[in-house]
């Protein structure tokens, strides 16, 4: 038991380090940015992606013929570790390369693959995933967006409806969208997947104003959007099976919650006056919480180390890797709230020029509710653990064998 690289891993790490030193932006000097705001805009992201792609680092595990390196998952992890030491621009390609393009690669014809894979890996074109709808987030198979055959006999499809919580739709070039094609069939058996051009006039993207103030997500409206039958991914009415291929990677793509953690809390507690004039860190109640958060964070860190070990040995990681977001999102919220309450009346101030750590805890507090929902709610993740890890039965489905059009819908 140790944390050392195997000789092959060490050699790969060295190669990555040399490449990053020669090609990445200069390492950060001095204070790390507590919010990790390293994005310099889309142009910088695209330029960095192109550099990585040219060197084979954009999609390390993909086959060489598709622009990858033919590498293994541990090499991907090593690159990520080394890259994180540099202030590289944001990565708007993750959803496309992690979820959409693999779906295209699995279900599209050769010409389509040739057309899209290269530009996507080089960061020239960005993809988004259009699954969630106002009527169903956790219940993806409840999609109501309709795709109907064009009446002109061309075989084209006409799409009408609305998607929501679409990350990056505002700058995406293409997307994959799951649509209802047969409302007379049960919900899982009447959906079809298509790829679409996000710049088509039949597509309208509106940003969602989040409770945190930001607008990272969008609503996407389709009005008589016409797509060719050749844009279909998988068979007609077989979209659910296609979507499973896409979603297989979602939990990996969403990852854990970040934000200000236990060490930021400790730092802040040492500098904030507490109950009797001493520092807040002397407060026993806060000390116990701090210990719990540290133990959780360490537990997750070493769970990742266990996962990495499995990858390093060429094994499939065990189910333990599924616990990350359940713990980290809730901790992010609780820790941020305790940090804000520690400031007493001052905690209500949400001005980065006045709040400790430039308002990192206030920012965390306001984005944490989203973390507990995105990429699988706390509740859905518990279902997944209970059903897929522990083997407990799925819920009784009242909607399973009923025609989609006959399902009760509520509001």
């Amino acid at each position, binding site marked *: 038991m*140790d944390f050392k690289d195997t000789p092959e891993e060490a050699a790969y790490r060295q190669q990555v380090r040399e490449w990053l030193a020669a090609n990445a932006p200069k390492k950060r000097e001095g204070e790390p940015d507590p919010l990790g705001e390293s994005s310099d805009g889309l142009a910088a992201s695209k330029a960095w992606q192109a550099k990585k792609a040219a060197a084979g680092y954009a999609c390390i595990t993909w086959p060489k013929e598709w622009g990858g390196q033919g590498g293994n998952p*541990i090499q991907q992890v090593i690159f990520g570790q080394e890259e994180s030491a540099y202030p590289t621009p944001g990565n708007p390609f993750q959803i496309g390369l992690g979820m959409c393009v693999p779906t295209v690669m699995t279900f599209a014809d050769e010409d389509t693959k040739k057309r899209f894979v290269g530009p996507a890996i080089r960061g020239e074109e960005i993809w988004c995933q259009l699954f969630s709808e106002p009527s169903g987030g956790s219940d993806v198979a409840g999609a109501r967006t309709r795709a109907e055959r064009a009446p002109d006999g061309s075989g084209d499809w006409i799409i009408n409806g609305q998607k929501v919580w679409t990350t990056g739709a505002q700058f995406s070039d293409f997307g994959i969208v799951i649509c209802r094609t047969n409302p007379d069939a049960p919900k899982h058996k009447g959906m079809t997947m298509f790829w679409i051009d996000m710049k088509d006039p039949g597509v309208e993207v509106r940003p969602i104003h989040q409770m945190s103030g930001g607008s990272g997500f969008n609503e996407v409206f389709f009005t008589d959007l016409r797509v060719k039958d050749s844009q279909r991914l998988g068979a007609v009415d077989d979209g659910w099976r296609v979507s499973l291929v896409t979603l297989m990677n979602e939990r990996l793509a969403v990852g854990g919650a970040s934000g200000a953690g*236990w060490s930021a809390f400790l730092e802040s507690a040492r500098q904030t006056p507490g109950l009797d004039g001493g520092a807040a860190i002397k407060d026993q109640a806060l000390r116990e919480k701090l210990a719990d958060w540290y133990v959780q964070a*360490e537990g997750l860190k070493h769970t990742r180390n266990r996962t*990495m070990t499995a990858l390093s040995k060429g094994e499939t990681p065990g189910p333990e890797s599924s616990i990350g977001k*359940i*713990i980290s999102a809730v901790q992010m919220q609780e820790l941020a709230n305790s940090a804000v309450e520690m400031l007493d009346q001052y905690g209500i101030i949400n001005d980065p020029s006045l709040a400790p750590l430039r308002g990192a805890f206030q920012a965390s507090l306001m984005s944490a509710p989203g973390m507990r929902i995105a990429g699988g709610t706390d509740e859905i993740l518990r279902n997944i653990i209970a*059903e897929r890890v522990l083997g*407990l039965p799925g819920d*009784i489905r009242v909607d399973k064998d009923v025609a989609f059009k006959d399902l009760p819908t509520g509001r």
Partner: protein
Amino acid sequence: MNFDFSDDQKFLKNEARKFLEAQCPTSRVRKVLDEDAKSYDEDLWKAVGEQGWLGAAIPEEYNGLGLGRLELCVIAEELGRAVAPIPFASTVYFLAEAIMLAGSEEQKAYLLPRIAAGEVIGAMAVSEGPGVTTASTLQATVEGGKLNGVKLPVTDGDIANVALVLAKENGKPGLYLADLTDPSATCEALKTLDPTRDAARLTFKDAPVRRLGEAGQGFELLEQINDRAAVLLAFEQCGGADRCLEMAKSYALERYAFGRVIGSYQAIKHKLADIYVKNELARSNAYYGAWALNTDAPELPVAASAARIAGSEAYWFASKENIQTHGGIGFTWEMDCHLHYRRSRQLSLVAGAPRVWKERLVSQLERRNAAA
């Protein structure tokens, strides 16, 4: 990255499980629970000795197997899973580790081979009453090599023949080895929350003792011993907590209510998922503790604290929610649920309660933060 046990260690773990399933079914644990006169399972203790487990981490020059601490960790996990009613922790995690850590050559040569041979049962005599024992509350004294004082509770104190006792000599706290077969030491068994792991009140009247380690270093040494024991206890806690999850899961899959198995209700599914999450966090922390223990890393105090806190939380949560999942039947004496509920209390308290470890952990994090 190789953050896992080796194939050999996994093989040992598997063998240990098979051995304990045969030698330590809960019917054997219950004999110790139900019979007041029975303080531990002597046959199992003997069998465990024959397996070489008592000397697993003791060097070969002292007649041990000379394996590492990682081997001890996998054995500990299986003992925890089996709720083994034997003084393994007192003898191996505390006494043997203490001797190997701070013993003189003479003490090592005398005690380690006897521990490996199963001739010694150890006991850790620190507590003297309610609350945390500190330098200011410590009453037991040593003068001219003679110990006077009362210690309670001392886990396995009623069956041990060697105790490691915290006492003051000239006002300086130290750790002292006492021979409990000497008439100067008397013992009285105590009723405890976990009768499968007995405890006693030990009274020393001019008992001849030998100091372990430096004078005045009692608490420092005790912390080091507790760090080592905490990692091994964390593995017992992981083993117990995983067993609770298995019990809860299998009951949830066979028990029907309102026309369906209770494991199909989200209230139960989410409860079991929460147990799983805590168990995995405990396991990952325990692994890190194992690494630190095995390599004697400077991170050991922090790693051991985290392992102990996570292990205590996981076993407590799993043991109480296992009873809850079982419903009324889980509250009966006949069901095994309470064996784990009891053992989870014993393991959480024996090397100091989680509250104490949380304080220790945060103090160390503070120092690290201040130094950075």
